[in-house]
């Protein structure tokens, strides 16, 4: 039986706003083992690919500790264009400092977009990389910010090219596709969810959305015919308009990455101690690079403007590389997969697994497949491992992220507030049962 057939549960975690070089680039540095199979950071002082220019001066990547940043980093469509710094048709990846200075009017000796983390800061990602599999050519689908990239992950196309306060128009939502194909799916959320932004509230209030606190008990008590075949686990979004019981752990700057690493440890621990781990595949990715530097140019994957889109300029490339890690008995320890993937690779995987054909999701997804974007199934090994590496138990200090309620500043915060309000208006009782913290939006 092929590995994909033996996998019974696919767990997807999409974190926020970090680039590959920023989180996992250190794997290639000599002081951290110098992995040659991973396309990370090398020869930082001399390799021209790592030179970023601002106002004639060259800045290069530097080691940074985890902590709260002074600013969020720019990552909207225009700012990403600045970061890619096209020379003709070639993205030079040399404009990350320039975009940061233009946005934040801050020019310091070590510009935060060029900071890279070490294994002490990303202890859980490091654990997964060393014990499971890294995908070092997983790209955000689009060179822009959160909403379009998450919409690509969950629909295969994007009718928006920016993050604004609105319910997102869409087609081919993954929940509809899974339901139509008789797939048991479930979503776990820490606090408020991203999915209400699609406006399809019956999915959210229909019993398939569970609190993250139920993950362990569900795993322990689900009967075989209840075990979800696809699981989405959502972090506590820093941009959520209200927090109750969870602190942000989504990795979105300016918040630190430490809480997100603990979140990943909780998920891995819950899954890996279960006997069902033998049939599980955990996929951890980031929605987009969040303004952090990466040296690998996006892929020339074109996406025409879809019908009903709220923008006119088609996309000519993918976005920037993001950290992607896969843990499963069906991946070999300490390996790297070099094939080109993006978030629609998840949809190809679902189509392959549940419809028997990786082209069975949508024409939008197939258009990317035809341009070289593969399925996540490509990473699987034929033979299953029997070892289950235990999650790190060492306490890792985490920078303080609790903060006073702040005024809504950015469009994602406003969008999540709008979605919460609409969800309450749709069915207040069910909405508050699902997301108790929404009570605070009513006060």
């Amino acid at each position: 039986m092929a590995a994909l057939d033996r996998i019974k549960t696919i767990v997807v975690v999409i974190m926020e706003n970090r680039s590959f070089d920023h989180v996992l680039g250190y794997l290639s540095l000599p002081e951290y083992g110098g992995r040659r199979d991973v396309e990370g950071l090398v020869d930082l002082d001399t390799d021209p690919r790592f030179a970023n220019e601002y106002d004639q001066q060259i800045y290069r990547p530097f080691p940074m500790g985890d902590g709260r940043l002074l600013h969020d980093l720019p990552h909207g469509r225009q700012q990403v264009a600045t970061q890619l710094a096209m020379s003709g048709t070639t993205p030079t990846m040399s404009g990350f400092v320039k975009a940061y200075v233009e946005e934040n009017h801050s020019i310091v000796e070590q510009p935060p977009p060029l900071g890279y983390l070490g294994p002490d800061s990303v202890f859980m990602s490091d654990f997964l990389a060393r014990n499971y599999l890294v995908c070092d050519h997983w790209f955000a689908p689009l060179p822009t910010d959160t909403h379009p990239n998450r919409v690509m992950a969950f629909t295969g196309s994007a009718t928006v090219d920016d993050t604004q306060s609105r319910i997102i128009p869409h087609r081919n939502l993954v929940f509809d596709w899974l339901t139509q194909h008789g797939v048991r799916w479930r979503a776990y959320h820490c606090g408020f969810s991203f999915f209400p932004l699609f406006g399809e509230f019956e999915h959210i209030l229909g019993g398939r959305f569970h609190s993250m606190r139920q993950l362990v008990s569900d795993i322990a008590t689900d009967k075989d015919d209840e075990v979800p075949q696809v699981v989405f686990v959502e972090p506590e979004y820093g941009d959520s308009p209200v927090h109750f019981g969870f602190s942000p752990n989504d990795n979105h700057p300016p918040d630190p990455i430490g809480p997100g690493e603990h979140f990943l440890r909780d998920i891995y621990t819950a899954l890996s101690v279960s006997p069902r781990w033998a049939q599980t595949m955990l996929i951890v990715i980031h929605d987009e690079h969040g303004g952090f530097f990466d040296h690998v140019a996006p892929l020339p994957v074109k996406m025409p403007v879809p019908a009903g889109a709220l923008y006119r300029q088609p996309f000519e490339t993918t976005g920037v590389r993001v950290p992607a890690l896969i843990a499963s008995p069906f991946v070999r320890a300490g390996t790297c997969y070099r094939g080109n993937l993006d978030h629609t690779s998840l949809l190809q995987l679902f189509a392959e697994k549940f419809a028997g054909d990786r082209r069975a999701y949508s024409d939008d997804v197939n258009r990317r497949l035809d341009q070289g974007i593969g399925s996540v199934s490509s990473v699987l090994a034929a033979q299953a491992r029997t070892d289950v590496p235990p999650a790190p138990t060492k306490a890792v200090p985490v920078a303080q992220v609790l903060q006073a309620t702040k005024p809504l500043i950015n469009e994602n915060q406003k969008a999540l507030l709008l979605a919460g309000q609409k969800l309450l208006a749709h069915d207040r009782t069910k909405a508050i049962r699902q997301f108790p913290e929404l009570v605070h939006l009513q006060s």
Partner: protein
Amino acid sequence: MKDEMRTQLFLTVRSIVPALILCAGCASIENFSANPRTACAGDAVTVTWAAVGDVTIGSEPPVADIGAKASSGSQRFVIDRDTRFTLKTSRLFSCKRTEADVVVAPPAREFGGIAACSAADRAIALTVPLDERQVSSALKVSSVTNANRRAIVLAKGGRQATIPAGGRSAEFDREPVAGTWTLRTELAPSESCEDALRSVANRLTFRVGFGCGE
């Protein structure tokens, strides 16, 4: 239905009004810089700012005459070591902060940028103008290094040096760092512009070692 519409209207108004109030009460930063970014001890650094809100200019370490300022302006501050200037602006509902560093006589800096290739000239070239934004007029060259993986011809003023990949030249020693530098690397006989640019990742750069005074 009326109740539903009333609720929707209430929610809409409630989400818009605070935003309008916040917009009117938010601090923002339009511009902030401290130049030159590389200086000598005793240099006067020009700090320029424009912001909305109550502005405070700070520095670490503290320098004379920092503190509350008009919402926009420009002022010179004398520094004698590496200094981080800060701009804080606060208003009714928010405060913003940003930073600018000035470094005093670092051992070296790398300059350069994205180069262009001319098939007609059979060369990749780049012009790097360095003025009071980047470097103090008091800074002198102590050495230059070709930071590229191919030989370059580096020129400034009437001086010129051909420097092998990774090599150094003393041709510009004791000359001011400020001025217009040009970098040029010839294409090999059968080399295309595309291949040549790929070999340097589209960039040309050089490192300048610094000294202050004589």
